[in-house]
């Protein structure tokens, strides 16, 4: 049982997420207990508006939890400064970079910001880490291209390379496959799988590609109205968790193929 010996990277303790406006609290989900281990690829799925983004925002310290705690590498988020956090957690967001007048190399190199000096000069070590990130995401040929010249799929790889260059043991991606065609959706998720195995990084992503996630992920977090549950895809299927994910009038989960089918 080597699995249990793996280092725990992220853990939530009775986490309640939602929004607090003045004295009124809007609870999105409560009692969330998830544990992410080193080298795992984890898919977060759930219907639109169920609170996937709120959960990711809470895990990345963009918003405060209503209750409970998020612990990354043994330290509670509440006690971590943003600069410290930037060395253990990197993100790929749904938004595009504000300026695309950067070369691929320059953009990926911005991932080294937490480590560089006051003016942001790259050391030889920084450059070799950036080069490695370019290599791992297969975008070395694009190195000197401007970001406005890239396709959506290429840009997504660049943003992933930037997160790799930040040299953290946890990467969180918010819907990395939106706007991509079927081939590139599979490509990006397979790339994440490869990276988690090769680099030992823990990679958590939210996605609507449940079919792909079931095939690729080590573990999945499923958000539904009643609960937030995390387990291996096989266990989740046998527990029938996916059947409760959506209203049953349109699509149904087929346990044999592990995918959703449109009801005729």
């Amino acid at each position, binding site marked *: 049982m080597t699995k249990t010996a793996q280092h725990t990277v992220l853990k939530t303790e009775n986490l309640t997420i939602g929004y607090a406006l003045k004295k009124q609290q809007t609870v999105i989900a409560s009692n969330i207990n998830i544990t992410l281990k080193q080298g795992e690829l984890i898919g977060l799925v759930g219907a639109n508006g169920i609170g996937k983004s709120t959960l990711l925002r809470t895990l*990345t310290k*963009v918003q405060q939890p209503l209750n409970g705690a998020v612990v990354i590498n043994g330290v509670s988020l509440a006690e971590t*400064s*943003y*600069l*410290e*956090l*930037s*060395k253990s*957690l*990197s*993100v790929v*967001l749904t*938004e*595009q*970079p*504000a*300026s695309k*007048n*950067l070369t691929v190399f*320059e*953009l990926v190199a*911005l*991932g080294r*910001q*937490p480590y*560089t000096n*006051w*003016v*942001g000069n*790259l050391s030889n070590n920084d450059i070799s880490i950036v080069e490695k990130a370019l290599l791992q995401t297969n975008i070395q040929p694009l190195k000197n291209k401007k970001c*406005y010249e890239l396709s959506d799929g290429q840009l997504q790889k660049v943003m992933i390379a930037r997160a790799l260059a*930040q040299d953290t043991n946890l990467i969180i991606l918010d819907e990395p496959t939106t706007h991509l065609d079927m081939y590139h959706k599979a490509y990006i998720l397979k790339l994440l799988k490869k990276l988690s195995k090769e680099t030992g990084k823990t990679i958590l992503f939210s996605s609507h590609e449940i079919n792909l996630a079931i095939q690729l992920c080590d573990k999945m977090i499923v958000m539904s109205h009643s609960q937030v549950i995390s387990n291996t895809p096989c266990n989740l299927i046998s527990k029938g968790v996916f059947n409760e994910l959506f209203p049953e009038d349109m699509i149904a989960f087929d346990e044999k193929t592990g995918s959703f089918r449109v009801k005729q």
Partner: protein
Amino acid sequence: MSDQKKYKLPFIVLVATLIVCFFGNISLGSVSIPVSEIAKSLTGFSDNYIVLHYRLPKAFTAILVGSGLGISGLLMQTLFRNPLAGPFVLGISSGASLGVAILILGAGISGSALAALLISKWSLVLAASIGSFLVLLAVLVVSTKVRDTMAILIIGLMFGSITSAVVSVLSYFSSAQKLQQYIFWGFGSLGNLSWNELFIFTLIYAFGLVLSIASIKALNTLLLGENYAKSLGLNISQSRFIIIIATSLLAGTITAFAGPIAFIGLAIPHMVRQLFITSNHKILLPAVFLMGAIVMLICDSIAQLPTSDYTLPINAITSLIGAPVVIWLLVRKRKMLF
């Protein structure tokens, strides 16, 4: 790194152009002074009054004004992620106008006999500084309450509208003579700064420049957007505060000493981005400094209408020369780089 090699030549060209423009600017003027005489004055062998007490301080002022406005424009464009932002989006210019308007027009309306005495060079500088400082203070106070950077942009513009409205009301009740005096201030002027005034100008300018240089890393991080910048450990509110203070020190003192100079702050960063094809502030900041200084020196030389007795308003020249250049660059490259 290859980066530094790539930009070495353009930087050498810019520095050389700046030196040429500087001496060109000093050599040209209403009074024709032989080059030998200018050289002697600059090296201390002769003390030509026009060169030492008029042209030289004016050339230095042009360098400070051009580079300062260019840099504050660059800071604002990156902070607000908006290629149309300039140093005056925070209401700095309208605040200064308000201060000066109250001094010139307000004093006229109240009919004070002292009014004529009050309006000296220093009181204009003081009124402009106080005006822009107060508007800026209001924007800063609001900005600590507002998280969205775009909202600060709008608030700055709103404060600008309010102050312009007050200026309009004051103008309506003013005499033609006072109005003319106010309009003349609005033309902008690089000349008539004494060495003492220039010294204070340079001091405040240097402080703003140091803060700008200290913000280079934060500015580069902000190119990714605020959320990414936060995930990279950048303290957004602190960086935003420093960038706004740097801009106001630069644009505020420039407006106080030289009047509201249009266009330079908006255009110079675009010219530099088109020429250097990068958004890296380590390259952009020094390049904008040089380019701003060069363009301002050229504009000033033209405004002097060499060998004639007339001096055109510098504000008109900066737009007349600058706007076509930016249009030409954009048409040629077909792309608004940012």
